[in-house]
């Protein structure tokens, strides 16, 4: 298998995994927008996390920002799979930012709220998986693929 082919497959996998993250974050966004996170009706730990002050920034649910971030990852990975070199750089930057945000949210759940939301943990796992896949990607050989 050529390096180019390997990279195409890898970015395609990243795009597919990002769709799973997008679905998870969309579900959490809907929960936040319907006000369900302010009620008891599901897992007690989930609403403890999603109903906390850490789940919103400036009145906007962080899940919504997460959905947008996963969509960006999906779009950038799709472009990268089609050989757009610049998309790979933006993809790494986006995932880097998401990785740091994920570390913060894991800290909040573990040490500040003492409760874990399973959908948030799934999102964390997806971000770590994508970061791992990008680390596995061989470095670029050319300056521009466009």
């Amino acid at each position: 298998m050529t390096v180019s082919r390997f990279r195409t497959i890898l970015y395609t996998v990243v795009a597919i995994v990002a769709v799973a993250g997008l679905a998870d974050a969309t579900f959490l966004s809907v929960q936040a927008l319907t006000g369900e996170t302010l009620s008891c009706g599901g897992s007690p730990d989930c609403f403890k996390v999603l109903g906390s002050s850490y789940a919103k920034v400036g009145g906007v649910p962080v899940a919504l920002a997460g959905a947008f971030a996963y969509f960006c990852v999906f779009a950038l990975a799709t472009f990268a799979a089609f050989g757009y070199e610049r998309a790979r750089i933006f993809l790494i930057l986006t995932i880097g930012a998401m990785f740091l945000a994920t570390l913060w949210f894991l800290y909040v759940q573990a040490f500040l709220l003492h409760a874990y939301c399973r959908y948030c943990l799934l999102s964390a796992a997806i971000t770590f998986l994508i970061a791992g896949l990008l680390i596995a990607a061989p470095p670029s050989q050319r300056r521009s693929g466009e």
Partner: protein
Amino acid sequence: MKRYLPFVIIVGVALGTFGSGAMLYRAKHPQLQAMPEEKALSGNSGAESMHIRGNPDAPVTMEEFGDFQCPPCGSFAAFAEQLLKEYDSRLRIVFRHFPLVAHEHAREASLAAEAAGLQGHFWEMYDVLYREQAAWSKAPNTRELFESYAGTIGLNVDQFKMDMDGEQAKARVDSDQARAESLGINVTPTIYINGQPVDPKDKNPEGVRAAINAALAGKPQA
């Protein structure tokens, strides 16, 4: 064609996400029914069969469907007390049991409140249960804790123990639960003001106050 393919895929996924998100929103947004005339509370009717706090003749009735093990219900209980002070004789609060299956000790707590109610101390037990929620929710000896609360608020503990297992307390809890289910309620707390449901998004101090003020002004809620 290959040049446009990534754009087509991305737009397709964006539309798919937006569409499924919108469908999920519609499905998740609770379709609470306004209370039919015969179920709505007004004046003093049915006062003997429900737990009322505040002026029984108040023009505004806030009916709460709650679960003693639900933390947002605990927060809401503290806020409700504040509302009673603010609105004084213009507001009365009615509590209905809706113990969720997900909460292991919620039904037992409802039975404890009803057993206390049979000795005329429902609201005292209500206050203790919410105040001590964090303690009993995860305790292995919940029943013992409820009995100790009964002693603390001055109940006859032996009678309390019997009433907790009695048919009357169970019937009260079951009746409230059936009422909640008939109204399409599936989360707690769910709030009705003069028979009109408060939208889940408005289940915050500003939203609830606005709904009470609208009811006081005789305006229909949005």
